[in-house]
């Protein structure tokens, strides 16, 4: 694989309600942070990808509306409507194409400005599904039940993911919801839609993030040593929930296989040092262990029971606290990638995993993880 690496990263603090900042304000903040982090100026950037969602922003061409704030004027731009990791995937491809040497990727989302379930309801087909009132929580509950009943995964095992990730968030200054909780607290939290309870679900979050990709030559100009993209894969599943086997994630299996093949990874559990996955609901983290090949199909519950994915486990997952501790939806996947980069650099502070050479970032898009993106970054 040709070389493309990340030389700069920037994130806002993730918060429940960023009432003091507009979308452009947040994008300006993360753009400046990423440029400073790279030791570059906006003049060094030759193309930009903006990632956003029109429904959440309450306007059309939401991606174009933040372009002044990320220095796009008179630059080549493109846009992605999807998770931030998919934007990063596209940004990396633009450099790999040879047409560009530095891509700035920015993403923003404020979930506080509207009503979450009115927006997530709109992801469903308007002719066959939307009138039912299905939303992100009820659709996830359909998947959680299918997954948990198929493989005998328990609510307590899911609760352990919440306890782990909220606890790990205490080491992440950007996280919104660091919590000292126990399994019992999750089990007794308000029931949203069985088997999902409040502490099984990610919070409502505002935030933004940015990364800068560079080719080998442009990376020499940056002050930070590049963290190279070693492998990436991307795959989607059917749109209608009833077309899919909701207990399994073949699209993630496929995306991971592609990423591992490019990165030369044959045993992910041994060869990946840290993983940041999109745990939008607690059960999802267990499903993604399986899809990513960290354990066999149906083995996610045992994996959390054995503590294999805690900070002292064989493969720490979500040292940042994951989406359960901050989920500015479109931003989530790019936040995972930024955390992976910080881990490889050894700059992850109190959440640092020792001797991190290969880090994995995972993003999802669409209802119940319809599509998946997997990236491996390292030195």
């Amino acid at each position, binding site marked *: 694989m040709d070389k493309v690496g990340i030389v700069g990263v920037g994130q806002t603090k993730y918060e429940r309600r960023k009432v003091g900042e507009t979308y452009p304000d947040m994008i300006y903040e993360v753009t400046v942070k990423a440029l400073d982090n790279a030791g570059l100026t906006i003049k060094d950037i030759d193309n930009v990808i903006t990632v956003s969602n029109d429904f959440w922003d309450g306007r059309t061409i939401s991606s174009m509306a933040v372009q002044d704030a990320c220095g796009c004027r008179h630059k080549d731009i493109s846009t992605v409507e999807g998770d931030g990791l998919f934007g990063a995937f596209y940004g990396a491809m633009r450099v790999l194409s040879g047409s560009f040497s530095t891509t700035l990727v920015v993403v923003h989302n404020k979930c506080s400005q509207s009503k979450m379930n009115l927006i997530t309801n709109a992801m469903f087909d308007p*002719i066959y599904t939307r009138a*039912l009132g299905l939303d992100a929580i009820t659709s996830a509950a359909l998947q959680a039940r299918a997954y948990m009943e198929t493989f005998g995964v328990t609510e307590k095992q899911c609760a352990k993911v919440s306890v782990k990730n909220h606890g790990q968030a205490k080491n992440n200054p950007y996280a919104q919801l660091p919590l000292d909780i126990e399994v019992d607290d999750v089990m007794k939290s308000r*029931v949203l*839609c069985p088997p999902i309870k409040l502490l099984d679900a990610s919070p409502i979050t505002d935030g933004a993030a940015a990364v800068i990709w560079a080719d080998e030559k442009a990376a020499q100009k940056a002050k930070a040593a590049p963290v190279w993209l070693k492998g990436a894969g991307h795959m989607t599943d059917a749109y*209608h929930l*009833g077309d899919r086997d*909701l207990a399994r994630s073949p699209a993630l299996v496929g995306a991971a296989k592609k990423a591992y093949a490019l990165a030369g990874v044959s045993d992910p559990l041994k060869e990946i040092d840290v993983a940041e996955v999109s745990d939008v609901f607690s059960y999802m983290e267990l499903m993604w262990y399986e899809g990513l090949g960290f354990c066999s199909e149906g083995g996610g519950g045992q994996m959390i029971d054995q503590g294999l994915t805690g900070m002292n486990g064989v493969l720490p997952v979500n040292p940042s606290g994951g989406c359960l501790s901050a989920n500015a939806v479109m931003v989530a996947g790019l936040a995972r990638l930024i955390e992976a980069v910080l881990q490889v650099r050894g700059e992850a502070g109190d959440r640092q995993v020792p001797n991190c050479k290969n880090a994995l970032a995972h993003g999802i898009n669409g209802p119940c993880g319809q599509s998946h993106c997997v990236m491996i970054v390292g030195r």
Partner: protein
Amino acid sequence: MAEWEQATEDIVYRGRIKVPYQWWVGETGSHFFIKLRDEKKLLGRYCARCNLVFMPPRQACPRCFNKEMAWRELKDEGTLVSFAVPAYTSELHPLEPPFAYGIIKLDGADTGLTHLVAGFKEGRLKTGLRVKAVFKEDRTGDIMDIRYFQPV
């Protein structure tokens, strides 16, 4: 921090987005909804190459990309593949609690229809349950012509 930045009030502009919209159902969907409205019949689309019946119907097979599909009449009964009973209220919910979202594999179909389940005693739903469609009296040619599915 400059003096002006120490404002004690953050102004919020409150608006509402409301846009009338018409979704054109298309020829395939229209046939499905006319049969539902006029005859209380549920039709799936059969792909002979894949030997699969898809519900809801679609113009072309999403698996093999073949457009030569045929209509197949399905039973108005099926099996509950998964369900979810919301414990919160929302202006989006079309039924009074208790009701559930369900994925229902109708007899004769290979994929599940996502719809509503009602008419059950609380705590009595389980996957694998047999359910049957309850149709609306005055049908208008949309997915809510099925009021919900209820346990057989």
